[in-house]
């Protein structure tokens, strides 16, 4: 037998394909990643989506406009209120109707509460992915309080069917404003607590800073939106840049990534931006519950929605980015075509680009920082 000395020159190497998912705890749903590895370095990542595909868009073509509302809930199930707001705004602009003041305020209160709830899940599960279990419990404790508020408003905790084109299904319950105020006073110290627990944790920063850097040019070209785009340094928020509803009346800031612990647009920036956005949502909420007027909430709901022939694309700033609805009407009671631009669908595309050259353990950190919801990716 000839014994060959193993040296760096004759060592046999080859690329390996590693399958991650579809049932993997840190893919946040059913997502399969085909990872091409050179040793421990990532050469390419190819996401395979579609495991949750229900062809929501085909369903829409067989239903009238109000019947679609419960279906949009089921896309982004962590921010269902915001999916409804987006759909309601799209249909209202297609019909050219105005909604009462009180409805606008209710929508903003619901939307911002939903943003906090969604970011809490994002932040909590991100910690969980990296290995920090405790912050997850803190986040879900606070999210529970928001879900209780939603439950007393419309009876459901996740899929609401509350915001309809032209209004909301019914008025706020009498105690709602008082309880929201209470929640906000309780919640503000928790952000500080969460920061101390997770954000400035040395291990957490080591795992996330300077990992998965997304340059601004690439981000725009890949259509990345929401906190992921802002973490790369562009001050772009549809609440200010393409205003809908009454966001122009409130005083709030749009945070951008500054590379606090590493480079602009790394995982830590994307994570921390969600923490600051929660603070800004609290600011909007405090102003909205002070200003909310009395009034009727169902008066503008049309009895029969039958838009004339036309088409519209409207977009709103969902917790995950730009949520757009493209609706084509041929003048019937049912839409001719509804296409949804789901922020997670577009944001997930960048994953391969971000992971290149990193270690295999960083895939989880990068994927978690993009914050996807597979219900929305697959529709």
């Amino acid at each position, binding site marked *: 037998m000839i014994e060959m000395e193993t040296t760096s020159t004759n060592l046999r190497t080859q690329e390996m394909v590693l399958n991650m998912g579809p049932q993997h705890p840190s893919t946040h749903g059913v997502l399969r990643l085909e990872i091409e590895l050179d040793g421990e370095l990532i050469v390419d990542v190819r996401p395979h*989506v*579609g495991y949750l*595909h229900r*062809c929501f*868009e*085909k369903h829409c*073509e067989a239903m009238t406009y109000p019947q679609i509302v419960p279906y949009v809930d089921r896309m982004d199930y962590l921010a269902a209120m915001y999916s409804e707001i987006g759909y309601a705004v799209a249909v209202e*602009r*297609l019909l*050219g109707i105005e909604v009462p003041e009180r409805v606008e305020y209710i929508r903003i209160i619901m939307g911002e509460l939903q943003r906090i709830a969604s970011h809490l899940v994002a932040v909590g599960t991100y910690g969980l992915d990296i290995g920090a279990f405790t912050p997850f419990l803190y986040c879900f404790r606070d999210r529970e309080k928001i879900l209780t508020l939603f439950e007393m408003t419309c009876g459901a905790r996740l899929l609401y069917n509350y915001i309809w084109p032209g209004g909301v299904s019914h008025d706020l319950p009498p105690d709602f404003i008082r309880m929201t105020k209470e929640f906000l006073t309780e919640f503000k110290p928790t952000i500080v607590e969460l920061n101390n627990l997770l954000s400035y944790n040395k291990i957490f920063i080591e795992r996330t800073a300077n990992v998965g850097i997304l340059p601004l040019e*690439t981000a*725009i*070209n*890949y*259509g*990345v939106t929401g906190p992921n785009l802002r973490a790369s340094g*562009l001050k*772009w928020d549809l609440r200010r*840049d393409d205003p809908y509803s009454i966001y122009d009346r409130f005083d709030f800031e749009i945070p951008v990534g500054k590379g606090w612990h590493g480079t602009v647009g790394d995982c830590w920036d994307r994570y921390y931006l969600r923490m600051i956005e929660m603070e800004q949502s609290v600011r909007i909420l405090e102003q909205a519950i002070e200003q909310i007027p009395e009034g009727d909430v169902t008066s503008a709901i049309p009895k029969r929605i039958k838009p*004339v*022939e*036309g*088409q*519209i*694309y409207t*977009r709103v700033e969902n917790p995950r980015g*730009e949520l*757009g609805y*493209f609706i*084509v009407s041929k003048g019937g009671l049912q839409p*001719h*075509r509804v*296409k949804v*631009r789901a922020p997670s*669908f*577009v944001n997930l*595309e960048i994953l391969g680009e971000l992971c290149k050259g990193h270690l295999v353990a960083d895939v989880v950190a990068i994927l978690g920082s993009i914050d996807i919801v597979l219900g929305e990716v*697959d*529709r």
Partner: protein
Amino acid sequence: MKTTEEIFEVLKNRYSEDIIGITNMPPEKIIDVKPDAIFKVSAFLINDPDLDFDNLMILSGLDDANGTKTNQPDGSFEFVGGTLSVVYHIESTKHRHKLVLRVSVPKENPVTESVVKVWACADWHEREAYDMVGVIFNNHPNLIRILMPYDWDAGYPLRKDYKNPEFYQGMKVPY
């Protein structure tokens, strides 16, 4: 900030043969482009400093359902002829203007150009349009199904005359 009409004039002067016209679909206005010219028109739109359309918001494929409808004895129907469309909603994050482009292709030969080289995010959108409506994008780096199973051979679900297959891989489909 430029209106659709102003951009239409610019495009008409530059690519007179490839720009078909402007269609009013209230509240939006659409510029119709010939399928084989969409790549060069979009490359111009993103590179021109006065236009600078750097963001593709959404790319949607749709079945126009404008062919002749023939009813089958079992209650289903089929569209013969007609067109499929691809609609591009683009905007400029610098100048804050938006534009809607549309490409219509005949259903028998639904071939158009890919714009992935212009806007990278068109990759998955075009795969979705191919998957759902069946538009074929030339020069796309990886034009395979995205949401449906890779081996789905029963057609394109978002066409108006789509029929569910009886079986998929030996499994009964209608439930």
